Every structure is written in structure tokens, then in C-alpha cells.
């Protein structure tokens, strides 16, 4: 009971949760795609748009000073949040996709040549495949793929065969957006480092469900989005070890990323500004700072207890539903994200019916066609829970799922 009332306290901070869709109480379980926003984030965005608005780093006037300090303050918050060793290692981007594209583009310009390879895993989101394919196309390098086993776990037994000196960078997900599996990134980082290969971690899902310590992980790059961690959409972060950020050529050219410009020669600013050309989403980034403050206030013991209850309940109910296949291992090493199919009921049909019952899920290929291929299906249905989801909502999810299956089969 105490559990429930505390989660309900969190819910009161999220106005979007308190609405009806199709006449039913909203049960929002598409947090893997994007999370809802707490009042503190919404209010800061409103406050800045309503008055505290001046372009950052450019002017001496009061408004510019205020926004600059909010923007740079958010950089400090992110630095502390992921325990980077210095604030200059935090680059603000538009999201995980933008962060990965930045590295893929800049890194490949300098470090990828014909005959080289990039290693990704079979479980990646398209955003951690396509930028590298594009980089390989430009440079003549090839993409190597670490396969998944039937439980959706990395085939670590194949790692040593795939990793050799021709691999110039490894880019893998902390947590799979489809399988919810928390990947053993520490092991991959350690193996890659033994061959002096840098590692990028796609943390889009990972940053939301665990505390990330980039110094402890020792990865060269860690990319994540603000909008999945209760921050505004269009915000993202690229952490990079400072000496790597110094070595990489700039990505986009424009204002704020330069030291001096003439028609003969332009010199670039030091990181992080070197990678922040043009007016950034300074309001969004400031509000990401507010989202981090929110996350830090969460009672982690309570949250993980609630999460555990939900996972146990859903797994128990799933095992009793005939024809249901859950993808990704059923163990504790998993975030509360469930991708599944039901025999005889198409995921899209289930999602449409459940939407009419107020339950918001994701269906389709979910930006991961290779994962669909791996498990021999065209599409899946996914329910992903966040800190504000209750056991009661999990019950409604199961009830609506059972009703939809009954209608379809």
C-alpha cells in the first residue's frame, strides 16, 4: 500500500498521465519510445519561452546571461549524473541518433579506411546501424555483427573471433530497445580495450533504468536522449572522453563551434563547443537539467521494488497466456520492457484494440528490422514501463490484452 501511494505521488507530477483516451483512463506503456514529462520540466520550458529567452554564449544582456547559465548548468548536472570527469566531456545534441551520427561521421573521417571494420550487435536499433553503414560506404570499411542467442543475449563466445585489429570501433547498446536485456557492456569494453579499440555505448534505454558511471564503465563514448528520461524532446547527450573529443574533427560547421574565422582559415573551438554548431536547443537542454533533478529525487528503493513487482506480475500472467512468445531472457537482467507476439493475433491488431481500451503500446518493427529477422517475425508488440507506472496499470494491460486476444482468435 505504501508502495502504491508513493508511486501515486510521483504520478501527480505528470499531468499527461491524468487523461482519458477513447473514453478510457490512459495506461501509458510506450515509455521505451518516449516518456511523459514532470511539471518541473514543463514549467521550466514555459518559463523560458515566456520570458527567460535570449541566445546563449553571444550577448552581454541579462536574458542571454540567464539562459547561458541554465544551459551550462545543465551540462554540470549531466556531468555529475553520469560521473564524467570533466564538464567539457558533455556534448549537447538533438538525441541519441544525433549523438551516434556525430561520432560515426567524425570518427570515420579520420579513422576508417578500406579494410577496416566496425563492430555492432545484432540487437541494435536502426540508429546504431545505419550511421555506421553510411560511414562504411564512405570509407570502404565493413560492418561486423555480434550475433544474438535465442534469449536475445550477445554471443560473447564469438567476441574474440570478431574482434581483431581491423576493428576500429565497437558500437553497441547498453540495453536493447526490443529485448530489454541489459547487455554485458563491461565485458565488451574490456575485450575491446585489450586491443586498444574504442567503444561507443548507445544508452538510449540504458540511461533510464540504471545509474550510469562513465568513468567506471570506461567507455570512450556514451550516447543518450533526453526525451526518454522525462526530459524534453529534441534533447540528447554525447559523452566522450576528452582526448577523443580533441582528436575528432568537427561534425557540423557554424556559429559557436569556432575560435576564429577568416576566408583563408578557420580554427575551431575546444570541446564541447567544437561540436555544438549553431543555436542549440538551449531551452530543451536547460529543462533536461530539471529532468535530471527529478530523477535524482526518486526513491530508488521504492522504484525498483515497484518495478520488480510489475516484472514478476507480467511474467507470471504472460506464462499463462496460450500462444504468447516473449522475446528476450526472462531473468532479472532485464528492464521492465516486454516485446512479444501472440499466435493467431497480429501485433498491430492487438495494439489497435488495446488503444481503444486506453492502453498505449508500441507495435511493428520498432526500428529494429534485424531483430525481427533474428526471431523470425515481421513485427512485435511492446509494453514498456516507467517509474510512474503502477501494478494496477499492469493489471489493466493484461486484462485488455486478454480481451483483445479473445476478439481476434
Amino acid at each position, binding site marked *: 500500500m505504501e508502495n502504491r501511494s508513493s508511486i501515486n505521488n510521483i504520478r501527480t507530477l505528470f499531468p499527461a498521465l491524468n487523461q482519458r483516451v477513447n473514453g478510457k483512463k490512459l495506461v501509458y506503456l510506450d515509455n521505451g519510445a518516449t516518456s511523459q514529462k514532470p511539471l518541473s520540466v514543463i514549467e521550466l520550458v514555459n518559463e523560458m519561452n515566456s520570458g527567460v529567452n535570449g541566445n546563449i554564449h553571444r550577448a552581454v544582456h541579462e536574458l542571454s546571461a540567464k539562459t547561458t547559465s541554465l544551459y551550462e548548468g545543465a551540462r554540470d548536472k549531466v556531468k555529475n549524473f553520469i560521473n564524467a570527469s570533466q564538464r567539457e566531456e558533455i556534448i549537447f545534441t538533438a538525441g541519441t541518433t544525433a549523438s551516434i551520427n556525430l561520432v560515426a561521421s567524425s570518427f570515420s573521417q579520420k579513422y576508417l579506411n578500406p579494410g577496416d571494420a566496425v563492430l555492432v550487435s545484432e540487437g541494435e536499433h536502426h540508429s546504431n546501424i545505419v550511421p555506421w553503414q553510411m560511414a562504411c560506404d564512405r570509407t570502404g570499411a565493413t560492418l561486423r555483427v555480434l550475433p544474438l542467442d535465442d534469449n536475445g543475449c550477445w554471443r560473447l563466445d564469438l567476441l574474440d573471433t570478431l574482434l581483431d585489429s581491423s576493428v576500429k570501433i565497437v558500437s553497441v547498446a547498453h540495453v536493447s530497445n526490443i529485448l530489454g536485456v541489459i547487455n554485458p557492456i563491461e565485458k565488451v569494453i574490456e575485450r575491446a580495450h585489450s586491443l586498444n579499440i574504442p567503444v561507443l555505448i548507445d544508452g538510449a534505454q540504458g540511461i533510464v533504468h540504471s545509474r550510469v558511471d562513465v568513468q567506471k564503465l570506461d567507455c570512450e563514448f556514451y550516447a543518450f536522449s533526453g526525451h526518454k528520461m522525462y526530459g524534453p524532446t529534441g534533447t540528447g547527450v554525447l559523452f566522450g572522453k576528452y582526448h577523443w573529443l580533441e582528436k575528432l574533427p568537427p561534425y557540423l560547421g557554424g556559429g559557436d563551434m569556432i575560435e576564429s574565422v577568416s576566408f583563408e582559415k578557420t580554427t575551431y573551438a575546444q570541446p564541447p563547443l567544437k561540436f555544438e554548431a549553431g543555436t542549440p536547443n538551449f531551452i530543451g537542454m536547460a529543462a533536461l537539467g530539471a529532468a535530471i533533478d527529478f530523477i535524482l529525487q526518486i526513491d530508488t528503493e521504492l522504484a525498483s521494488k515497484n518495478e520488480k513487482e510489475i516484472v514478476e506480475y507480467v511474467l507470471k500472467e504472460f506464462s499463462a497466456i496460450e500462444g504468447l512468445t516473449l522475446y528476450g531472457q526472462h531473468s532479472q537482467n532485464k528492464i521492465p520492457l516486454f516485446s512479444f507476439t501472440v499466435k493467431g493475433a497480429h501485433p498491430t491488431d492487438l495494439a489497435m*484494440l488495446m488503444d481503444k481500451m486506453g492502453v498505449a503500446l508500441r507495435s511493428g518493427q520498432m526500428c529494429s528490422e534485424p531483430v525481427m529477422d533474428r526471431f523470425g517475425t515481421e513485427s512485435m508488440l511492446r509494453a514498456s514501463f516507467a517509474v510512474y507506472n503502477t501494478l494496477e496499470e499492469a493489471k489493466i494491460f493484461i486484462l485488455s490484452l486478454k480481451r483483445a486476444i479473445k476478439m481476434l482468435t
Partner: protein
Amino acid sequence: MTIKEVEQEIVEEFAIFEDWMDKYEYLIELGKNVPVISDGAKLESNLIKGCQSRVWLDAEFKDGKIFFKADSDAIITKGIISLLIRVFSGRRPKEILEANLDFIKQIGLQENLSPTRANGLLSMIKQIKAYSLAYAAKEESSK
């Protein structure tokens, strides 16, 4: 009956359902009775691929009229397909090209034809129109 009249008929049918669940139950029922393409005829060439679901469409031109067969792996999509086939199949190309499909909106299913839904339905309608255009041109040239 004209296309408009068939559309009106469908609108009246759907008007008897009060809630969404009933409406979808009816679509599922309809989906089970679509003129189905046999698995052997489900070719890459008549596949319309969406992120959400897949649609197959086959057309035959006979006596100045086009007859459509279609299928989908998703049953609600199939139900909507059955409505489209009821409206379009056995019509002359010119009639099809002039149809504007207002009925979809009137029965509240327009969200299923949004480009972002990616279920193949919008592409299917485009394909139906493309067939009609091609057959109309063929008819014209053979006159």
C-alpha cells in the same frame, strides 16, 4: 449501384455500432471474409510493405472492369480492405479514379489511412488508383 451508394450503405451499417469495440468486432468479422489471395500468389511484386502490417493486392481486368483481390497479415487491416474491395472491385477504371472515399472518414477509420500509420492501406489505395489509370489508358489505346 454507384460507388457513392455503396459507400452510403457502409456508413449506415457502421452507424448501428455505438462503441469502438463493436465497430472493431465487425471489422474483424469482415476481415475473415476478404477475397483472399492464395499463399502461392502472394508475390513480392504485389506486396505493399508497411512497418505495421503487410498488404497484398492483385488486380484483374475483365470486360472493362477491374476486379481486385487483397490480403493482409493483420485482421483489422483486412477488414478495412474488405470495405475498399466492396467499393472498388468490379468497377470501371473511370469510376475508381473519381472516387474520393469520404466514407472512411464518416465511419471514423481515417486514422488508419494516415501516412504515419504505415499499415499499407494508403499505399494500397494509391495502387488501386494506379491500376485504374493504367487500365484506363489501355482501354483508350485499344479503341
